[in-house]
């Protein structure tokens, strides 16, 4: 048995019919894989998105942001990226394992990003980072806030922990409204 904590309107895999799914081991995702995957996905979905006048750069940015976080923080295991072309929005979902300690930090950050005014939080993080040494700036949340601030993205998060496990399956879901 496991326990799921959801922040925001998290859509589970049974609720969505993903058009595209990519699962790869973290060991095959070096730092530049974020850009590699973002470009691949943008090229793959180019036609579908152009039909809806969707800006491909937005998708590129979102995938890059999510993949960079996964590459930086994920525990060993699989990184799973799913895209669903829904009626109201493009839904991008990234799931990966996190060590329990990292998951707690990410969960607090996710709650903050979800609840706060994105403009105010963006300014607050910039200010905080300016006063902090670079060594402790990791996980500041600027990337997630920028998704809300610059792309009007809806965010949702899921944290699934199996009993007696130190690993938390973490999902970040970004919904980009059709323009």
């Amino acid at each position, binding site marked *: 048995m496991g326990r799921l904590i959801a922040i925001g309107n998290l859509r589970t895999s049974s609720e969505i019919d993903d058009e595209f799914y990519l699962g790869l081991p973290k060991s*095959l995702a070096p730092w530049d894989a974020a850009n*590699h995957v973002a470009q691949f996905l943008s090229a793959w979905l180019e036609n579908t998105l152009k039909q809806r006048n969707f800006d491909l750069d937005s998708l590129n940015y979102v995938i890059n942001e999510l993949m960079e976080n996964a590459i930086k923080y994920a525990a060993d295991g699989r990184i799973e990226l799913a895209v669903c072309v829904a009626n109201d929005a493009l839904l991008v979902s990234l799931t990966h394992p996190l060590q329990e300690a990292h998951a707690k930090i990410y969960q607090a950050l996710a709650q903050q990003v979800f609840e706060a005014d994105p403009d105010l939080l963006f300014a607050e993080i910039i200010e905080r980072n300016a006063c902090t040494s670079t060594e402790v700036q990791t996980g500041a949340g600027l990337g997630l806030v920028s998704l809300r601030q610059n792309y009007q993205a809806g965010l949702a998060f899921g944290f699934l922990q199996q009993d007696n496990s130190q690993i938390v399956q973490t999902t970040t879901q970004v919904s980009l409204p059709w323009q």
Partner: protein
Amino acid sequence: MDAQTTELRYGLESFRKDWRHCTIGSNFLAGTHCSSPQNRELASTAINEMLELAFRAGADASKSWVQTQIERSVMTLSLDLTIQDSLIEELSGAIASFHLGPERYFQRYLGAESPGILFGLSFLVHDLSAKVVLSMPVNALHVRVHLPLLPSPEPIWED
């Protein structure tokens, strides 16, 4: 699933809207697993044939899977696909004839009347030793290829 496996799953309907998906997908998957140009080229060629098979023969409103896995020095590629009803007879006939050998499959399947899937599938079977299973009545096609990878990333022209 094995943690060292990369899996790509996609809806056939939108996949078949753009022929370039075959190249985009094969270049990505081969590049993810192979650092040496020779291995990448070999893997990309095989994956591209598989994706072209899905493009030509896949039933709309279904999904297809491509998996790539490296274990020791062998790369295993798998394709799972639901075939269009109209192609089943021809495909079953082609699969039954594979044991006859590779002779003249170029001439046999390159003609204008012959569906491209038979040429691509023959290439996978005869040149890359692919194993092919067609399961009826669900029209499920499974193709698996084992590619021995070159051990060294050194360019072959240095010999």
